[in-house]
């Protein structure tokens, strides 16, 4: 896949930071506003898929490759389990909140909920990109 015309590339380059920022906002504010790790991760993945479609798979792979996505997905999953084990190690229970709760409505509040949503966001982003890459690699032979 060789990428698209200059018009599409320019629009994708201009739209990418806003889409990425919106997805990151949805993930980070998951404990305050509607949204969370799952929809936010999909929005971030959509921004990167847009770059892949506009610039072609070869140039996009240098930025976010198949291996990057694979590693990031595992890191997200492991981060969630390790955060859950904190509660178990302190003798409460698995996935129990051990951090201070903070003030209601502030960005740094609710203990481990934002961190768990951050892990979910990373994991969903990497998973969607992995699925997209797998489909691209499977059908690349037919096109050339």
């Amino acid at each position, binding site marked *: 896949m060789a990428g698209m015309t200059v018009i599409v590339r320019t629009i994708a380059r201009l739209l990418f930071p806003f889409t990425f920022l919106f997805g990151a906002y949805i993930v980070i504010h998951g*404990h305050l506003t509607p949204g969370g790790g799952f929809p936010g991760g999909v929005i971030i993945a959509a921004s990167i898929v847009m770059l892949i479609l506009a610039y072609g798979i070869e140039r996009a792979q240098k930025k976010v490759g198949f291996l990057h996505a694979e590693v990031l997905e595992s890191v997200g999953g492991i981060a969630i389990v390790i955060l859950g084990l904190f509660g178990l190690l302190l003798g409460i229970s698995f*996935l129990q909140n051990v951090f201070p*709760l903070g003030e*209601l409505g502030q960005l740094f*509040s*609710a*203990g481990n909920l934002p961190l768990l949503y951050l892990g979910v966001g990373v*994991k969903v982003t990497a998973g969607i990109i992995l699925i997209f890459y797998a489909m691209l690699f499977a059908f690349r032979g037919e096109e050339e």
Partner: protein
Amino acid sequence: MQRALALGMVVAIGVLLVFTVSTNLLPFGSFPSRQIGENFDNSIGQQILENAPQQTGAANVVTSVVWGYRGYDTLGEVTVLFAAVVSVVMIFRAFGRRE
């Protein structure tokens, strides 16, 4: 023979499930531990709505249910996502190799 055995197994399990649900569980449409008469506020949903901001510290009640009260469930959800990604990558790799 195998097919008939499998079909019989499925029918047997289905009959067992329908029988169990229709006899042993709560009546259809009723919430757990919710009595319409006197203790109207005693349902689980009402308890979570009232206590979630103090107990979990999250302003979003959905988040406090998803990761606070039902953390195991969401961990399973994440595992399902992982399994889905792994199976899609596996299938499409085999698909691409054959051509």
